[in-house]
């Protein structure tokens, strides 16, 4: 089954974010209170190494397992979409202490309440596409 490698990458992702407490509401609250370096260290070190990794992608030093070049699709431009979307996301992230990845990882801990958050997030994505014609981008 060719998708098994993605399952394994996901398992690693779930274990790492669990063990580093990135999926704990307390760590997100502490981050936004600027009372710990922990979350900044995680995101910061991931991005610094990510910049080097993307450089290797672009230079062609690292290719996919099939030998094809790796390209990263650019994000959509537009100040309003990125700023307003970002603010709305940030409000939710700080309230329930979980972004889309951690929601699913918390499900693995058997947290019943996170099911409500996941369903609401799916509905939120639906709501955006239902009303995006009326929003500034």
């Amino acid at each position: 089954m060719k998708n098994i490698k993605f399952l394994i990458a996901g398992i690693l992702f779930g274990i790492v974010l669990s063990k580093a407490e990135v999926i704990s509401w307390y760590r997100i609250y502490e981050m936004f209170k600027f009372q710990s370096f922990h979350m900044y260290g995680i995101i910061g070190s991931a991005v610094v190494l990510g910049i080097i990794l993307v450089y290797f992608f672009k230079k062609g030093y690292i290719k996919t397992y099939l030998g094809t070049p790796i390209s990263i699709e650019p994000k959509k431009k537009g100040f309003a979409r990125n700023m307003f979307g970002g603010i709305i996301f940030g409000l939710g992230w700080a309230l329930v202490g979980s972004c889309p990845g951690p929601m699913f990882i918390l499900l693995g801990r058997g947290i019943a309440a996170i099911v409500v958050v996941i369903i609401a997030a799916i509905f939120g994505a639906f709501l955006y596409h239902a009303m995006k014609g009326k929003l500034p981008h």
Partner: protein
Amino acid sequence: MDFILQPWPWYVAGPLITFVMFLLFYFGKKFGVSSNLETFCAIGGAGKLVDFFKFDWRKNTWNLMFILGSVIGGFIAYQYLTPDEAVAINQQTIQDLSDIGFQNAGAQYLPDEIFSNDTMFSAKGLLILILGGILVGFGSRYAGGCTSGHAIVGLSNLEIPSLVSVIGFFIGGLLMTWVLIPLIF
């Protein structure tokens, strides 16, 4: 082995997140979790109501496998790798939370004030979970990415839209944490 059972420090977790990003690109895909929310809409038949969701969701099966894996990873970490559930947050954070009515902050992995079953079945508790979820889902798709797609991949790719989004994440997060949470709880 003891090292694995302890909470992992930032300098272990950060590089491992980049390694996960490497794996997904090496396998010919990308690192972005919030697009799965759209895939679930498409699977649920949202295409009948909104044309955007008329895409063939099967092309995203790999990403559904990734989040299925992350559920399993969460289970493994919880069941086998975390003997002590306490989260060693700053003493000041514990005090600040106590001031707004959060008992024993950090003694468990998650606050009962938001995630316990009793809270979930109260009107206010349920509303908080629904509101938080909608904001995360709506905002991430409006911005075109979440912490993975914008904060990790987008910043690694030195993209201005991602920098704007991450600044937005922080404006929203700071507003919620410093102004709204004390009013809500």
